[in-house]
């Protein structure tokens, strides 16, 4: 059994919180079966996360990072344990469009141009109107720095631009919880660094809660307010590491001794997972 971790330190002790927790997992276990072989992807994972925070998930390959994200997004049902997203079940949160999801490959529909891809969420799941004050597809493309590329088809965009479109799409309708599963894993390091900085800017501007999966120590340390380290076989919480780097962060922070020390600590931790 993994330790229960509580990130909502500011909540009053009586359990009567002003805003519900962005995420509250209790003892989540997920088992997959394939061809007579059972895999315990997650075992007894407990975790709570307050609204507006930025959590990065780090861990060796196959430790269940994606699975945890997918449980939160109601793509996978936990075999045991309970999950509450913004005070609701994951299914309710999903139907209420509280959740945005960004996949490793941008998963754009190749026959739709950039703005139509961003617009997709309005066309499915019951045609929805954007709330009055919400950012419109064009605004979101501007936000991710793609003004002028509205009509480009995905294959005309570079990998980094495709991921920006995917982020814009996930932000449409102003989700209160943004889940990102190695969104920059396939990009080259320079593009990745640029997008990391930009993501922090977007996070600051929109105020969404973000859970970000990565297997890069540098990325996890640079982005997260906290880094949740998972251990593999079975996937369970190894440690929750608080990041005390100053905010807002710029890339140069990576050369700071604190950052180097944090990276070293994460690396050492990772080697024990």
């Amino acid at each position, binding site marked *: 059994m993994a330790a229960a971790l509580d990130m909502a330190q500011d909540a009053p002790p009586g359990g009567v919180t002003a805003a519900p927790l962005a995420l509250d997992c209790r003892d989540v276990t997920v088992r997959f079966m394939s061809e007579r072989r059972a895999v315990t992807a997650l075992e007894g994972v407990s975790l709570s996360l307050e609204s507006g925070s930025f959590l990065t998930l780090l861990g060796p390959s196959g430790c269940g990072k994606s699975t945890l994200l997918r449980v939160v997004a109601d793509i996978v049902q936990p075999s045991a344990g309970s999950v509450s997203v913004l005070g609701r079940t994951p299914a309710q949160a*999903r*139907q209420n469009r509280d959740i945005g999801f960004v996949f490793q490959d941008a998963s754009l*529909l190749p026959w739709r141009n950039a703005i139509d891809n961003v617009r997709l969420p309005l066309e499915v799941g019951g045609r929805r109107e954007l709330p009055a004050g919400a950012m419109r597809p064009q605004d979101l493309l501007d936000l991710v720095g793609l003004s002028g590329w509205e009509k480009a*088809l995905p294959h005309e965009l570079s990998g980094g631009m495709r991921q920006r479109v995917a982020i814009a799409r996930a932000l449409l309708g102003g989700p209160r919880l943004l889940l990102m599963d190695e969104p920059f894993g396939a990009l080259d390091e320079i593009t990745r660094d640029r997008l990391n900085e930009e993501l922090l800017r977007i996070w600051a501007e929109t105020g969404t809660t973000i859970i970000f999966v990565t297997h890069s120590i540098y990325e996890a340390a640079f982005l997260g307010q906290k880094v949740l380290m998972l251990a593999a076989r079975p996937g369970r919480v190894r440690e929750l590491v608080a990041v005390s780097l100053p905010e807002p962060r710029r890339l140069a922070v990576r050369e700071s001794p604190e950052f180097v020390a944090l990276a070293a600590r994460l690396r050492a931790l990772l080697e024990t997972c």
Partner: protein
Amino acid sequence: MSLQATMPATSAAATADAMDAAWLAAQQRLRWRRRIMPLFGGAALLFVWWALVAVFQVRPFIAPSPEVVAITFYQKFGMLMQNLWPTAIEAVCGFLLGNFAAITLATVFVHRKAVDEAFFPIAVLINSIPVVAKAPILVLLMGNGLSPKIAIAGIIVFFPTLVNMVRGLEAVNPQAMELMHVLSATKWEVFMKLRLQTSLPFLFSALKIAASTAVVGAIVGEWIGSQEGIGALIIQATYNFDSALLYATVLCGSFFSILFFLTIRLIERFVVRWQPEGAP
């Protein structure tokens, strides 16, 4: 192989412009070769045909010489066109109906796995029965007009499209499926916004094959009873040993089916403008 040989490393004085010009000329030559080679191949075939007939004194009822066929084609052009017309209508209607049915059934198969499992083997069995053995039953059911021929063209077209369409509808990117789930899309929305477009490259690869087979189907359909059409003309020419007319008729049908194929390819170019990710 992707080796891009440009120019041998000659002198550093070779300007970029000169290199480009040489390359462009080479490209131009290649493009022309690609256009001319089929004509060349066709000419070679015609020559071999002509030479065989001339040298071995092949008598016309065994194989006519190409010039005789050409003359027949020219002289009977009106009659050939008049007979091409019904065949073309049957082929196109059969193409539309057969593919429509296949696409519909593929849709059902994809959404109801049990139906797929129950009926796919039957579809295989029925497909393995030669068309001409199925044809008389269709005449019984539909009489002698255009309909049985359309049905045969449709049936012959149906199976490959079914197989490809099922494959295409199932070739959706699993992450795109998860995205749709996160967006709470209904099955119908997933179908309309995702599966359909994903399947298009698969579908067109079947349609391009179907274009020629539909014509073959219409011709075979005419053999079970038709007074006009390419198929009827083939029977008549065969029975009368009018080999020049036979060859001209067969070529006429072939030209039409190639035209049909090219049309579908043109439509594909207009419809599928994006870059598929690992389609056929």
